[in-house]
């Protein structure tokens, strides 16, 4: 009971710590998104603007501290200030400065990229990934203590080993099998800890959730996609892999089957990337929206919104771990399906679960 209270108090403190961030929302430089200058802004649109600014990727990172206005870290500018400098590659003159067409606004960066503006500078999301990996390194460093029998000693060592063994036994071996599972454990453990640390970093007030950015989850899903296909091809061979796409159906159904299976190859990682992205983004947005009620509606809304936000924060603590688990689990499941392709074609193939 005492521990529950400690957790609640800690979560409330962290939630309240996030509040003053709203106060500093006016001071952002608006370069990242075309703000309508000069228009009088009401509190609601100001709040939503701040929230969107908080959860979206940007070229700069500002550590939002209460009452203190730290100078933002212009992470992108360290790698090239103007188009054509450093990693800010401009292959077609004017491609970066020219605004995209209205129909292309939803995926502006991709169209800009295709037009020749290769903005490869690290952004806020990249910086927060690096911070998260730094934290992971710190945790692994703190968790290196072992006694002479190799038994972990201390909190961090136990946490790391518990999670690692969970990934090995419950995710890798459970879904891929006893022979192939351990081979994929380092990859799956890396995915798990990467996603988990990135998720948790976003829950520290002031930091940013890189997994709530589409680009990051797309990148991770593409890695998973490649791993899945590699596992399938390695297990069944190129011929067996493509034969599998047509399935064990009558000949006239084969083209249809191929379509379904081929689409399935992409829908699986697509669902993976959208799930992680949406979960991480939505949680943070809802948390902020509830807190913004204090500024938009009335100060008295704090009575409702702070406990609600605290509860949501606790839920987010769980979701951060859960999403890391689900991402890793589904990755393992897809790899396991790929591995099972090889056993599928052997008549006495043991653990093929088809």
């Amino acid at each position: 009971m005492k521990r529950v209270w400690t957790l609640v108090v800690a979560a409330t403190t962290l939630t309240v710590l996030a509040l003053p961030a709203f106060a500093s929302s006016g001071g952002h430089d608006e370069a990242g998104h075309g703000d309508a200058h000069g228009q009088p802004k009401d509190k609601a649109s100001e709040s939503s603007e701040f929230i969107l600014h908080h959860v979206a990727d940007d070229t700069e990172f500002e550590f939002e501290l209460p009452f203190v206005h730290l100078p933002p870290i212009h992470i992108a500018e360290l790698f090239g200030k103007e188009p054509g400098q450093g990693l800010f590659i401009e292959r077609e003159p004017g491609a970066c400065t020219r605004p995209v067409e209205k129909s292309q606004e939803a995926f502006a960066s991709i169209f800009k990229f295709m037009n020749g503006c290769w903005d490869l500078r690290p952004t806020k999301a990249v910086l927060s990934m690096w911070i998260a990996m730094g934290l992971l390194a710190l945790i692994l460093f703190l968790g290196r203590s072992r006694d002479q029998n190799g038994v972990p000693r201390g909190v961090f060592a136990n946490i790391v080993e518990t999670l690692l063994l969970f990934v090995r036994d419950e995710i890798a071996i459970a879904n891929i099998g006893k022979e192939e599972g351990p081979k994929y454990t380092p990859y799956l453990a890396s995915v798990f800890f990467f996603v988990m640390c990135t998720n948790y970093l976003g829950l520290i007030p002031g930091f940013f959730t890189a997994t709530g950015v589409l680009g990051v989850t797309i990148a991770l899903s593409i890695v998973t996609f490649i791993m899945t296909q590699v596992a399938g091809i390695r297990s069944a061979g190129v011929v067996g892999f493509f034969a599998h796409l047509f399935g064990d159906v009558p000949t006239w159904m084969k083209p249809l089957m191929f379509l379904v299976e081929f689409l399935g190859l992409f829908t699986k990682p697509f669902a993976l990337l959208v799930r992680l992205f949406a979960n991480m983004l939505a949680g943070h947005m809802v948390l902020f929206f509830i807190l913004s009620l204090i500024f938009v509606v009335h100060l008295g809304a704090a009575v409702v919104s702070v406990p609600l936000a605290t509860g949501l924060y606790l839920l987010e603590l769980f979701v951060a771990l859960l999403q890391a688990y689900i991402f890793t689990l589904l990755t393992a499941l897809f790899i396991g399906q790929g591995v099972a392709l090889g056993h599928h074609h052997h008549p006495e193939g043991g653990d093929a679960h088809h």
Partner: protein
Amino acid sequence: MNTLVLASSFTDVKPGLIIWTWITFIVVLFILKRVAWGPLLKSVEDREKNIINAIESAKRERSEAEKLLGEQKSAVAQARQEAAEQVRKTQADLEKFREDLMGKARKEADDLKAEARRTIEEERVKAVADIKAQAVQLSLQVAEKLIAEKLDDAKHQALAQQFVTDLSRKPPSA
């Protein structure tokens, strides 16, 4: 409109971000695989192996100990049985030996007795013969002395012999 533009920043996919995520992830993957997961998983596997070995060797030792105990128990029982057998046999031997000895001794004693009896008998017969001879002699001398002079030696001797023989035929007590 403004919000729509902002909202598009969610769907915006920056190719640079994808590439940086790959770089970060792959670097992390290789470093962790080398520095963290490899050694960690190896130590865990070693530990698991050690535990399995320890359990197995404990089981083996236990069964061995039980086997040894059983062997020892049966050995003790056998030794006890053997000892009992030995004692019994020794006792029987002893008994037999004692009986043999006793029998031998008795036989010897009997033999000795019989020998003694025979000797006595012989001696007695001899003595009786001697006595008889001497009695003949004595009586002859006595008769010689009594009758004084020359009797026919042969005639008298036969007479005296006749007399002594008659004498011996009568029981001495009668």
